């Protein structure tokens, strides 16, 4: 008779194999990049070798302002993301309790979700001016509606028997939410977090490029933008690499871990 740990062993093997493949692909792409630049397949002004960019990145990160600018961006994204997440959860709880509220937010997210954060930027600037509040509004707009979209879709996909069992044992709306719905929504919650995280960065970087410097140093978007202004291609690439790295770290250390400890373990999604 197999117990749970034994049953999960093959999955763990598949996962470690996937990680190895992942790194191999990255390595192949980097080697290709380096070779193309070194052998002159592409103009070094268009694409300097990876090692040059990496050296520049290290230098800028530790001796320049880039480290502080990265932290600035990260801090703004985290705050905007956290506010959006909490708002999305509260709104979903209200939607779960009331059909009327659900139809309101269904309508709102249908209208506002496809609207790019960049598109509303001029409006936000006119309303709030160019400051940190406007930045948060833009990030929250980028994140909130997509999260709500995911969660509302998830709400409708919860098996009826799970909700009805909850009603049958007399759960209050609050207990129904904290004891049943939140867990049943985990797959969609994770999908919403992932999409939302990407949207938050998009919104932030666009805002930083349009707003210019906010605070003493500005953030990554401003850094990349100035790299373009001064035609420093290595800086531009260094900024992009940092954003990509933050994405990879968030996925492997946060979202991937949450997924592994929840929906994977519960068999709500497959490998």
């Amino acid at each position, binding site marked *: *008779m197999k117990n749970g740990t034994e049953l999960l062993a093959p999955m763990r093997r598949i996962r470690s194999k996937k990680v190895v493949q992942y790194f191999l692909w990255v390595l192949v792409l980097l080697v290709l990049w380096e070779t193309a630049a070194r052998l002159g397949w592409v103009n070094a002004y268009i694409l300097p070798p990876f090692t040059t960019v990496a050296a520049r990145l290290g230098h800028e990160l530790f001796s320049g302002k880039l480290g502080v600018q990265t932290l600035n961006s990260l801090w703004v994204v985290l705050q905007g993301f956290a506010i959006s997440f909490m708002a999305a959860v509260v709104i979903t709880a209200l939607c779960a309790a009331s059909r009327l509220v659900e139809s309101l937010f269904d309508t709102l997210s249908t209208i506002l979700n496809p609207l790019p954060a960049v598109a509303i930027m001029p409006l936000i600037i006119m309303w709030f001016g160019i400051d940190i509040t406007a930045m948060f509004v833009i990030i929250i707009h980028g994140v909130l509606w997509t999260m709500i979209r995911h969660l509302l879709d998830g709400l409708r996909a919860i098996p009826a028997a799970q909700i009805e069992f909850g009603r049958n*044992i*007399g759960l209050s709306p609050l207990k129904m939410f904290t004891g049943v719905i939140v867990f049943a929504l985990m797959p969609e919650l994770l999908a919403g977090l992932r999409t939302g995280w990407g949207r938050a960065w998009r919104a932030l970087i666009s805002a930083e490029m349009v707003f210019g410097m906010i605070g003493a140093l500005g953030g990554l978007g401003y850094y990349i933008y100035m790299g373009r202004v001064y035609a420093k291609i290595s800086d531009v690439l260094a900024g992009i690499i940092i954003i990509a790295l933050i994405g990879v770290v968030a996925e492997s250390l946060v979202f991937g871990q949450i997924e592994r400890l929840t929906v994977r373990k519960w068999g709500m999604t497959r490998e």
Partner: protein
Amino acid sequence: MSELPVLSVQGVCKNFGALNVLQNVSLDLKANEMVAIIGHSGCGKTTLLRLICAFEFYDQGLILLDGARRDRPSKEALMLFQSFDQLQPWRTALGNVMYPLRVAGAAKNRARELACKRLADVGLSDFMNAYPHMLSGGMKQRVAMARALALTPRVLLMDEPFAALDNITRSTLQNLTSRVCGKYGISALLVTHSVEEALIMGDRIVVMDRNPGRVKAIVENPCRDISGRRGELKEKIMKLLQETAREKEEM
């Protein structure tokens, strides 16, 4: 007092818009009794169960549980569903049985103790820490059964809980259900499509007519014991047959 039926359905009518789903349905369920409801699709069997556990409201008539009208769902009239996803995938088998007990206010140790006992009743002592996705369909229904037993409802409402199972598993679970409901004195209403199942499990069998759904006849089933024993025998023989097939494969 002992004559008072646990459940009394009196002249119940239910319409969905212009559609008359149930018309003047009356039936009683006595203590420790199991009644099977059989009828073609669309005769309102499931609707009747949903009215009894107050998931929906009836338009006319009266439904009394222990002599009292219930307007809100409660664990006293508990539904056992057909679908395998009635368990919470994020809790282990043990967690699934414990959860409603904890909700009802039981202390953790007490809930765990009771849950372990009921899981043992349905033969799942070895799978208490398994998550539902690791269990077969039949095992999931057993967990749901243990969960229902632990809550000691006055009436257990079963909506074709074995319909999606293979023959052997179904037969095993039919016998198991009869046994445990008898053991804990739980009255039960069982909706089924299968005459055989009705004969094995029902002390009485309510035959329903459709368009609109109404009671055609209530048939006493004096041979439930015999059918049950026959069912157990059948189960035994099928298991033996299965074993011989397996032995052949191994050779």
